[in-house]
């Protein structure tokens, strides 16, 4: 919810605070509420309730769809960011982070001050957080969600957990329903129940629906270690210069070889590269390059940057150059020749990279067919640096021209005939007499793309008196109520 609010704030389209907003996700029977803001909570919308029910209770509810994958990616980044407080951290489910602060709380002046510091810094990021500190993972989970604000739990975990509802035990909903029917509403009540009967009742259940094992985890009787994930080390090559220089060209080959050796060691290839120079006046300038396939060829990297080095503003010189691989992908080494020789030619991905580096990524295109009858939309020009399309539309069975004009050119009809194309027309100040024609092929506008009122087109393949074959169309019909008399356009040329 905070992330959505922040995104809306950035585009200046955030609703006022008193408008109830919920984020929805797809549920089993239609969308359910994933997150709510404060106004929606006060209006009665709860998480997990279906959107239609919440709308019935609160008619002014504004419903947006949540970005679950984006939330997860944000949490994965936060896992590394929170290492400022402790060396071990891990993402906990879809909404939580677990930090193992053993031995590091005193560095922040105790657990109370550490929690306050965490809350302050997270709110500076625009994120609200509920924090708790407890000896076990399960107890911290329950206290953070159902306990008091910034609750601290000493060694007596059982006493701290006792007043909390059983929902704090990370159980599945059907188990919660069962426990409620059994009359066990709080964790304390569950803990007072005879252990033998609970074990007998839930012996065959997995961990997620076994309250006995969850309770043991929360009290520390079952181990639950924090499996911390390490951040991938940055792939970066540095060149520290003894005195400031103006031109980084001479250091590029060594940097590229250093970076490619690192890439080779990890079995990776670079897709995005960034060359940064640290100027003596304290600012950083840089240029970026992209590749269409993961690469770790030093000569190729040098060529990608060599022609654009002049774009860097050197200022009064710089004394540190770094070349870093931003996005990497795994590459497999392929042996081309049995005798270990190398081809002297240029692979297709390398060619695309070079052209994109020289002319810009938008100049190199890879057209793909698209399932549409409209001639302009039957071909979509992707940039060649983009990944190859997963599915390609089938080729058009009909006769299509070799060339298509980017904008159809209107022609002046001199001699119109009631059926078929005009017998004589002027295009580009030349008179064309239609000797033969084929058609019409009627293509209706696509109502899901086009504006209302778009007219249909009748395409003709015509041949003029000199043998030139053109693709012309008439836009609209007489009396179709969408404008005046239909006009004629040239749209393409046949071979």
């Amino acid at each position, binding site marked *: 919810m905070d992330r959505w609010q922040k995104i809306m704030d950035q585009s200046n389209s955030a609703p006022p605070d008193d408008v109830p907003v919920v984020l929805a996700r797809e549920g089993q029977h239609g969308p359910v509420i994933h997150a709510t803001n404060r106004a929606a909570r006060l209006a009665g919308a709860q998480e997990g309730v279906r959107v239609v029910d919440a709308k019935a209770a609160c008619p002014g509810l504004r419903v947006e769809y949540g970005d679950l994958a984006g939330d997860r990616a944000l949490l994965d980044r936060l896992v590394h960011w929170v290492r400022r407080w402790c060396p071990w951290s891990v993402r906990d489910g879809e909404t939580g982070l677990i930090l193992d602060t053993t031995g590091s709380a005193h560095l922040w002046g105790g657990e109370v001050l550490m929690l306050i510091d965490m809350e302050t810094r997270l709110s500076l990021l625009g994120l609200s957080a509920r924090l708790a500190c407890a000896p076990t993972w399960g107890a911290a989970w329950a206290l953070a969600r159902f306990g008091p604000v910034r609750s601290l739990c000493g060694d007596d975990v059982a006493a701290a957990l006792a007043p909390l509802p059983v929902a704090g035990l990370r159980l599945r909903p059907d188990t919660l329903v069962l426990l409620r029917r059994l009359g066990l509403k709080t964790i304390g009540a569950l803990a007072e129940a005879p252990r033998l009967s609970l074990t007998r009742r839930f012996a065959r259940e997995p961990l997620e629906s076994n309250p006995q094992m969850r309770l043991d985890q929360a009290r520390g009787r079952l181990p639950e270690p924090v499996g911390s994930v390490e951040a991938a080390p940055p792939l970066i090559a540095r060149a520290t210069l003894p005195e400031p220089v103006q031109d980084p060209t001479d250091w590029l080959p060594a940097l590229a070889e250093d970076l490619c050796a690192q890439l080779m060691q990890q079995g990776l290839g670079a897709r995005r590269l960034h060359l940064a120079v640290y100027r003596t006046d304290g600012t950083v300038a840089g240029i970026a390059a992209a590749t269409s396939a993961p690469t770790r060829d030093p000569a190729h990297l040098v060529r990608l940057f060599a022609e654009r080095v002049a774009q860097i503003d050197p200022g009064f010189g710089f004394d540190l150059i770094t070349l870093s691989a931003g996005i990497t992908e795994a590459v497999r080494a392929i042996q081309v020749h049995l005798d270990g020789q190398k081809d002297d030619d240029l692979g297709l991905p390398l060619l695309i990279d070079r052209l994109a580096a020289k002319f810009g990524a938008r100049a190199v295109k890879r057209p793909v067919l698209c399932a549409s009858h409209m001639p302009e939309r039957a071909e979509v020009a992707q940039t060649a640096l983009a990944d190859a399309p997963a599915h390609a539309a089938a080729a058009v069975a009909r006769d299509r021209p070799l060339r298509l004009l980017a904008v159809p050119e209107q022609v002046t009809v001199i001699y119109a005939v009631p059926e078929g194309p005009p017998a004589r027309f002027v295009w580009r100040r030349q008179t064309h007499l239609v000797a033969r024609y084929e058609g019409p092929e009627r293509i209706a506008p696509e109502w899901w793309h086009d504006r209302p009122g778009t007219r249909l087109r009748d395409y003709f393949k015509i041949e003029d008196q000199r*043998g030139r074959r053109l693709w012309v169309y008439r836009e609209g019909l007489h009396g179709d109520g969408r404008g005046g008399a239909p006009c004629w356009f040239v749209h393409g040329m046949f071979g």
Partner: protein
Amino acid sequence: MAWAQGATAPHRGACQKGAVTLEQKQNINEGFSVQCAASSPVTPRLAPLSGPAVRVRAASGPTLSEVFPEASSDAAAVGFVLSQLPGGMAPLFWVQDRLSRLETGLPYLPGLGPRPVIRVEVNRPVDVLWALEEALRCRALAMAIGEVWGQPKALDFTASTRLALRAERYGVPCWLIRRSAAPDLSAARARWRVAALPSAAHPDDAQAPGDPRWRIELFRARDAQPGAWVARHDRAADRVDLVAASGDGPLAEDHGPEQQRAAR
């Protein structure tokens, strides 16, 4: 290789005065080779070939060729170049300068067939040459096509030599389509003029245009006889059938080597 064809023995019929076959020459580096097998070398004039339709399956040679369309807004030259594509599904490389894009549009993938295309849009003719030189180093390409409008200074003899040498070294055919340009000095191994002709009869519809026909003229070639033909592109079989252009009677008649020599 330049021209591959079903070479038949020259036969003389009642209505066919002479037949000439084109022979395939095996040396791959010599570009186009059109040889006259039936008689002594014919004069390098228009209409050296006459008689029956010499059925030629055209395949492009790995060298630099230039095509000069007769009218700039005509796609006949594009059709002719595309008919020279080798088989297979190797990608096609296509680079256009700005004026070519504006005046003659973009290559349209649904009309080109299933072969993948890499299209580069640059502004200046010198960038077209740079992109072509880079592309010719890539053996994975089926063909590199460049479109240059007019007669830019960058496209001089040196530039075309570089393109030709690189195309021959890496075995990637390179075609330059030069619109609204006069054929000036160039190192292109074969230079063509292409114009559209009224198409062949449609098999099903008398009113509709059928297979395209072009008037192609090879006006300069390194190892081939220049000549002019009427080409008919059989799109169903992806084959170009050649017949001689406008055979004027006496020259076309084959009276044997002696009389030909005498006619010269």
